[in-house]
């Protein structure tokens, strides 16, 4: 079991782009008007989770 990876709730995301701008791994990008995490790049730092103004990103354990 790995560390939790960031996951964007696509029903909540309002496409502000804040998470993308602070990600130290360039692991997020905007697609279809919502932010999306590239799991392979995510290092579980949780900066995006703390940055989201509306709490649309959470940690999810990947198997």
């Amino acid at each position, binding site marked *: 079991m790995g560390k939790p990876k960031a996951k964007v709730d696509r029903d909540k995301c309002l496409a502000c*782009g*804040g998470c993308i*701008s602070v990600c130290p791994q360039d692991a997020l990008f905007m697609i279809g008007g919502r932010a999306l995490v590239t799991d392979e790049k995510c290092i579980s730092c949780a900066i995006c989770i*703390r940055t989201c*103004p509306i709490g649309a990103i959470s940690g999810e354990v990947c198997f």
Partner: protein
Amino acid sequence: MKYDVVVVGAGPAGSVTARFAAEQGAKVLIIERRKEIGVPVLCGEGVSRRIDNWGMLEGKRWIASNMEGARIYSPDGTMVKLSADLAGNETGYVIYRDIFDQELARQAAKAGAKIMMNTNAIGLLKDNNKITGVKAKQFDDELDIEADIVVAADGVESKVGQWAGINTRLDPKDLETCCQYTLTNIDCKDAYCDFYLGKKIAPGGYVWVFPKGKDVANVGIGVLANLSEAGMPKKLLDNFIANDPRLKNGNPIRFLAGAVPVAKPVETVRDNLLLVGDAARQVDPITGGGLTHCLEGGKIAGETIGMAVEKQQFDQETLSVYETGWKEAFGKKLKRNYMVKEIVLGFEDKTLNMLADSLKDFKFEEISTLALVKALVLKHPTLLMKLRPLMKISSEV
């Protein structure tokens, strides 16, 4: 297809750059990933009256309301009123950003720029490390768009700069994470933009109320990302509204999130590449305002591109006319205000209260540094120590 310039992003900076490049005779393409320019709005929609100076916007449809001034509330509620003349520098109009952006895009098109919607930039085209255009995706089609110059106008989350090797990643302490309701059924009969400061109200930022009409206003919050937690801005804003007699009975007709870079400026020019607007971090670190820079900087960018196309020279040195130009026009102010931001962030709520108490009766019509310092220090002598670093900056820059 080969263009002189491809602009990534049809926000204000992209459209203005495109317009002035096209007016100088360049063959310009704008690509925009969204399905409607300006939508969704990601903005507090307050803008300086200086926007009139450039005369780039026709008509009045983009204006929601004219502001008479601004009021700043310190953590204990002490109010400092700024008249229109002074406050107008930051808060002259409250606008409809969607109409605003579409008007600027229309002007770009009128000047001859071509616009492609639903088109995502996914990478740069390169030939031996030389940038030769943009790789893009429109629906299921991948496109190679060749151009001599690529303009990164792709906003706060800019990727284009990164692809060219410019580090545009933001430290959380240099990002305001925001959200905003447009509330209706509230009383906004006096046309003032209100700002509320305090660590409990908005850590490292502020709450704003920008009236768009007699009974409707944008009510938003910005929190510095390094002081925030998941969802904190929304919780603090909901709390603020619930406890404000003027706002608590309001009903939302819109909710949006936002992210505002409050960083030091980055490099904005490489061979065959320019960065403009939020992608270039051209935002005032104190107020979070960026629209006037998009217009002023975009014009300089567009004219520089026109000159480069005329000469058929696209190297960094040729394009650096843009960087020199915008730094002269407003870059120095941004640099100074970044230092001011860093100092003011260190102020306790108590210091802000003392400042407001000293300034509440100050007649800003007679503003001069000396009069200001006198007013501050006469009432609260301990402010002198706190303000010394600020005075140092204003004397140096």
